[in-house]
């Protein structure tokens, strides 16, 4: 017994002819259906091209608009021709004009000969399919679809809505249980003949004529009535993208297609010369008979779908610019923002870089310039340190930095002097880890030699800005990991919070901190705060500092605090 191929063609007829010739030469009869909408001249050329092959036949032509009955009618008439004309055919394989056999015909013939009673057709109940487009599955069978989906989309959708609303239903014929599946099947002669010669055929045809996309359901449903053995899978390798459109194979898929071990693939780009050459001329290269395994190449296409629907989180580029809250990651990786730390500690940057192994920048949003690590003027990806460029689009600046340094944790300092307009973005970014020692901005003022009234003025500005920022960080839409200490709290027991922060940056290190950064000398700081108060300003963010240093000195002597292990 051999295999007969039905080819449904509408474009690239020269390729179809090439494939038909290949099959016919290997003693597999071919029945070709050409879409009625194809021009007469192109059709005649195809017929004359294949005139020398007596096992190639042309069936009656139907107009095959996508989703309509024409495709099924065309398949039926081609199948009838196949069954009548070629008695030696055991299985009938439905293929399209853009299909390409990937394995030698003999392998397919012997594969099917070993499974002479098996029908290979994907046939799944409507409850179990996950791939229908437009949310229509069982409704394909119960509603009416007199309008074209392609050309009259509004009428199509409107009529569907109307039928849903008034509860208009078609009755499914008795004995028919709707099934769906890929339209590319391979049925035994027996099953196919049974479907075509069934006494109920007229009733079935009448019903399916008004079902939507009947080529995905007619044979898939009826096969359940007549088949003795169904393998619910297609022998044709066919991949669909997120819109339900088949992926096309090109020359660079050659190795991939070889590895799939499938018998036939669709759809092939008509100009993929290398594929046609490789698969139509290659002989059996003596490889062992492998079971078709499309799974091997699924990954590639699954990735394409994911890229198209979810994209790479944290990437903003010419063809991916998500609207707020659709970013799927506002930034590409976790990063840490420190506020007040390098005011309070003299060597915080170096210390943090050493203990955490992360990249520690200075004030990236400083008014003068972006203080990249190690005093660099240009940073990863070509980011300039110009404050004007950064402020022109601060969000892009930050997302670029995090994207460009994927794989390396970024930390930077922040403070009330810096550009504040970036705060809402950072605060709502789950990747951000924000640690604030409130009021620590007063330490540099405490050290400065400016005169008292200037210091007071600046302190008031700083405080106002930081209060705003803290209010934002404590508000409800915040997604960042936020920790806030007052300065007084923090210097009371600095090691614990520092340990937490470092653990979060490098969770795998799990080391106890042996050394803390060097704290600024705060002798007289209480007095300094009191003098601000005396000037009429109320410093509130630092926490509770006694005016005289005596009390504090007894509890926290000014040495590097060491942790007792």
């Amino acid at each position, binding site marked *: 017994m051999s295999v007969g191929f039905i080819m449904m063609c509408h474009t690239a007829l020269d390729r179809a002819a090439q494939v038909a010739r290949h099959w016919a030469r290997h003693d597999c009869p071919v029945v070709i259906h050409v879409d009625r909408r194809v021009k007469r001249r192109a059709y005649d050329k195809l017929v004359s091209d294949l005139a020398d092959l007596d096992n190639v036949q042309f069936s009656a032509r139907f107009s095959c608009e996508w989703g309509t009955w024409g495709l099924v009618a065309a398949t039926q008439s081609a199948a009838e021709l196949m069954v009548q004309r070629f008695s030696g055919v055991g299985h009938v394989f439905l293929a399209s004009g853009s299909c390409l056999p990937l394995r030698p015909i003999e392998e397919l013939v012997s594969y099917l000969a070993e499974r002479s009673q098996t029908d290979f057709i994907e046939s799944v109940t409507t409850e179990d399919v996950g791939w229908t487009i437009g949310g229509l599955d069982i409704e394909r069978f119960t509603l009416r679809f007199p309008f074209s989906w392609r050309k009259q989309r509004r009428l199509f959708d409107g009529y569907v809505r109307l039928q849903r609303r008034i509860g208009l239903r078609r009755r499914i014929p008795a004995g028919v249980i709707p099934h769906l599946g890929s339209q590319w099947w391979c049925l035994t002669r027996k099953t196919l003949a049974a479907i075509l010669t069934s006494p109920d055929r007229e009733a079935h045809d009448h019903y399916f004529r008004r079902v939507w996309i009947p080529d995905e359901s007619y044979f898939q449903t009826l096969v359940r009535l007549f088949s003795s053995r169904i393998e619910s899978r297609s022998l044709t390798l066919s991949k669909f993208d997120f819109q339900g459109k088949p992926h*096309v194979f*090109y020359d660079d898929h050659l190795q991939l297609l070889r590895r799939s071990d499938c018998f036939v693939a669709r759809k092939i*780009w008509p100009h993929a010369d290398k594929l046609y050459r490789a698969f139509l001329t290659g002989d059996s290269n003596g490889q062992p008979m492998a079971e078709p395994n499309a799974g091997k190449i699924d990954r590639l296409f699954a990735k394409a779908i994911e*890229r198209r629907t979810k994209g*790479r989180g944290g990437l903003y580029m010419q063809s991916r610019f998500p609207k707020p809250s659709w970013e*799927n990651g506002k930034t590409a990786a976790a990063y840490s923002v420190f506020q007040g730390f390098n005011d309070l500690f003299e060597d915080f940057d170096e210390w943090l870089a050493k203990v955490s192994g992360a990249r520690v920048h200075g004030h990236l949003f400083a008014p003068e310039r972006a203080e990249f690590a190690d005093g660099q003027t240009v940073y990863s990806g070509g980011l300039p340190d110009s404050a*004007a460029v950064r402020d022109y689009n601060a969000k892009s600046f930050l997302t670029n930095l995090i994207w460009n340094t994927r794989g390396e944790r970024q930390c930077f300092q922040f403070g009330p002097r810096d550009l504040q307009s970036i705060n809402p973005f950072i605060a709502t970014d789950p990747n951000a880890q924000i640690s604030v020692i409130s009021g620590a901005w007063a330490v540099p003022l405490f050290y400065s030699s400016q005169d008292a009234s200037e210091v007071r003025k600046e302190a008031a500005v700083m405080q106002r800005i930081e209060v705003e920022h803290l209010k934002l960080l404590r508000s409800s839409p915040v997604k960042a990991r936020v920790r806030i200490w007052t300065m007084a709290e923090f210097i009371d027991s600095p090691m614990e919070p520092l340990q937490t922060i470092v653990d979060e940056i490098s969770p795998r290190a799990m080391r106890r901190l042996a050394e803390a950064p060097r704290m600024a000398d705060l002798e007289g700081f209480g007095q300094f705060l009191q003098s601000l108060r005396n000037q009429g300003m109320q410093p509130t963010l630092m926490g509770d500092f006694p005016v005289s240093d005596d009390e504090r000195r007894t509890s926290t002597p000014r040495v590097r605090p060491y942790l007792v292990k």
Partner: protein
Amino acid sequence: MSIFSRYMLRLERKRWRIRAFRKRRELKPVVSRVSLISPGDILLFSTLRNERVRLPYLLRYYRDLGVDHFLFVDNGSDDGTREYLSRQPDVSVWGTNHSYKRSRFGVDWLMWLQSKYGHGHWTLCVDADEFFVYPFCDTRPMRALTDWLDASSIKAFSAMLLDMYPKGPIDAQPYVEGHDPFEIAAYFDSGNYLISRNGLYGNLWIQGGPRARTFFTDKPERAPALNKIPLVKWDRDYAYVRSTHMLLPRGLNLVYDDWGGEKASGCLLHAKFLDTFTAKALEELQRRQHYADSHEYKSYKSGMNAHPDLWCKWSEKYINWRQLEILGLMSKGNWA
């Protein structure tokens, strides 16, 4: 978007088309081989001036990609550009000595040619120093891309301008006719692009790259735009609004996904920063025919004297499109 602003955009589009129609008289055919254009051909449109040295490689590059016919507007070249192009079998040339600036930097002229010869074709609008790169361009011809775009009902394909530059002073290595300019200008900035969205036209506005990094650090808002939509299935109703940065109707500008996914996109490798640049900059400064009073060229001039080198330690050396994809400068989208 209100009906009113939609209507205003419609009027704007009509205005651009009328403008292009009126500018048609400025074009005089030099050699017309448009009868060779058959349906479905991919067409390339370009305005140029004194680019003779670049032409052999340019034509070879795009012929290899599968461009079927070239339509050039020669804006008063005197270096043999016009003669060279006239000899090519797949090229049609129009000449003009009218103002480049007043034809909206060549766009009016090209739009007229596009509406006349490009209707229903995939048209690629590029300058002589822009080289189109798209996903799989090393294994699949442009026809594969346009077939896929057709099948996906996509009408416009974006390709961001990627400024390429050499390591060292840009005029250190002379460009030799017929050679790949990216053998010299092999470097680019991988991640300093600033993006914002234009609410009226719906397009993205992208600035950045080495030019913003070196010439425009104090006035980034004036840095040149890098967003481009050069490949369009042209319809005579379409109009380019500003160079090839944006189009009308607005739907054509939605070349990006705003639900988190990535659409397919390419890049235009920009071979501007070669030794030819200094002479060109000086000439353009005198002609004052470029965008915003050649402001760009003025900045280059002062920038070129202070920083003759665009290269920095973070510059990335160009390998292929896959590298650009990984860096996030372009995307395969769901083309696999």
